[in-house]
């Protein structure tokens, strides 16, 4: 058994996408962990910010919601929602958003609204929040998912947040000239999207996970021809996550 948890592997796998200078949009849960880890480990000059308007907080303690008072202290600016979303979509900035979702399809479109019929749902979730906004406006979206067949679906019950829409250049034709789904980071591996068809493919499987297991847990066909094994977390990465990012183990 690996000496690290799914959440740890996921946070680090996602964090590795971040570069210095990126503006990182973080949500709650693993997304918060990944953003903080990215800044502390991979890209100290990245800026973590929240849709609520807290920009680059000091994060002495890990926040448990995007409106947590912990994201208001030590920021460079406490702005409002409109200003925050205008940052997400700002053409001068390279903004990467971490999202979670209940369902994803092969073009990286997301559902965080409802399972079943919209009007008479089987399960109602929180709704878009800012997810639809950042999916529309950011330079790229990285989504966290539990890798299960019922979550990786042919057709979403509800399309909350646009990824590559119907593939190809359909996203651009919608009126969304930039952005799109960059990756889906799951508890089994990392999925990316084909450069022109925009279909999901398996990019990395975690140590100890087989390609077959991922195929079995995906509700549509995925290209696995480019799959490689992901690098496991280093001891130093794990130390920082555990001791600096979330010592209270509120999310880990």
């Amino acid at each position, binding site marked *: 058994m690996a000496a690290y948890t799914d959440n740890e592997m996921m946070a680090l796998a996602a964090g590795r996408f971040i570069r210095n200078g990126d503006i990182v949009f973080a949500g*709650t*849960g693993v997304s918060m962990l990944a953003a903080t880890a990215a800044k502390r480990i991979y890209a100290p000059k990245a800026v973590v910010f929240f*849709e*609520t*308007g*807290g920009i680059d907080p000091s994060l*002495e*303690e890990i926040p*448990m*919601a*995007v*409106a*947590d*008072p*912990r*994201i*208001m*202290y030590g920021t460079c600016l*406490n*702005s*409002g*929602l*409109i200003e925050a*979303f205008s940052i997400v*979509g700002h053409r001068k900035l390279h903004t990467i958003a971490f999202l979670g979702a209940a369902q994803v399809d092969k073009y990286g479109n997301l559902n965080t*609204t409802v399972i079943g019929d*919209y*009007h*008479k*749902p*089987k*399960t*109602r*979730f*929180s*709704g*878009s*929040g*800012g*997810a*639809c*906004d950042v*999916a*529309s*406006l950011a330079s790229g979206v990285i989504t966290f998912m539990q890798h299960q067949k019922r979550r990786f679906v042919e057709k979403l019950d*509800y*399309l*909350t*947040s*646009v990824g590559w*829409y119907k593939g190809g250049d359909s*996203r651009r*034709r*919608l*009126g*969304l000239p930039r952005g799109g789904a960059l990756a889906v980071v799951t508890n089994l591996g990392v999925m990316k999207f084909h450069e022109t068809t925009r279909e999901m493919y398996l990019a990395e499987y975690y140590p100890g996970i087989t390609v077959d297991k991922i195929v079995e847990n995906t509700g549509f066909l995925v290209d696995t021809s480019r799959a490689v094994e992901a690098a496991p977390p280093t001891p130093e990465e794990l130390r920082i996550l555990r001791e600096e990012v979330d010592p*209270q183990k*509120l999310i880990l």
Partner: protein
Amino acid sequence: MGMYPEIDDKLLSLEEAVGRFIKNGSQIAIGGFTVTRNPMALAYEIVRQGIKDIHLVCHSHGQALDILIGAGCVSRLEIAYGGNGRYAPTCIRFKKAIQRGEIQFEDYSNYQMSLRFFAGSLGIPFIPTKSGLGSDLIDIEGFLPEIRKEEKVASKKYVVTQNPFNGEDDKVLLLPALNPDVAIMHAQYVGEDGTVRIKGLTFADMEQAKSADVVIVTCEEIVPRSFIRLDPDQNSLPPFFVDAIVKVPYGAHPTAVYTYYDYDPKHLNLYKKVAEDDKAFKVYLDEWVYGVRSHQEYLEKVGNTALFQIKANPILGYAVGLDRK
């Protein structure tokens, strides 16, 4: 004339503020965001007064939303997000009400709702955005056509149109403005001149207040004119937008007020447990809302120990080392 002659005519009790300005069927915008600065004292009072058929217009809301829905005060909802962070990834009574078909609802996103309030505050009928193109937020309507004929409801959920300023095939979404009947909010400070100051994030509180017909502000403190006017760069809302002011210390409990107190994990965990069960939830409402006559009595039930635990460091703004599990 009271202690504060400049705002004497606006200083009300919770009972008066709700009784005077909130009616059955009112369209209401709530200040704050998920676990922070929910106007809870006002929400509890609305429940106690038995207001019905509220039409809530929200971006991301948590505790106040869930209490109002759970107590049966809400019949219609425009919303981006119902959640309370770790304590309720999806607000529990909100979830149940929708799954049981108890309320009419329609989904927007946070940016969209914020822009709709902003448009309302500017007195323009719509505002464009790129956010939401291609999503089911546009494609699926929640409200029935007959509702769309009402005065405070947009006649269409969205309009997708071409950008008229360039030749390309460039699409934008037009969002209808919102002008709620009432905006309720909780602030750290109101000056004795009626000026409102919020510390920390303001979310869409200002846009909501300026879009509404009536604004009710509860606050932690009423501070001297000389203090609030010394550095007006920090103020949030001029007096002439505010219709009612109620001084209610801990008026946002169990949600947080930056620099005053943190969210209350014990109470939110208690709530999480009871909200899952209809009977337990009813007992909770009886005990914590109907069973107390004032917010002061509610705070006595919360108890000093809990209030001390969540007391915020005035600089950091939260309770350092608070057990938040």
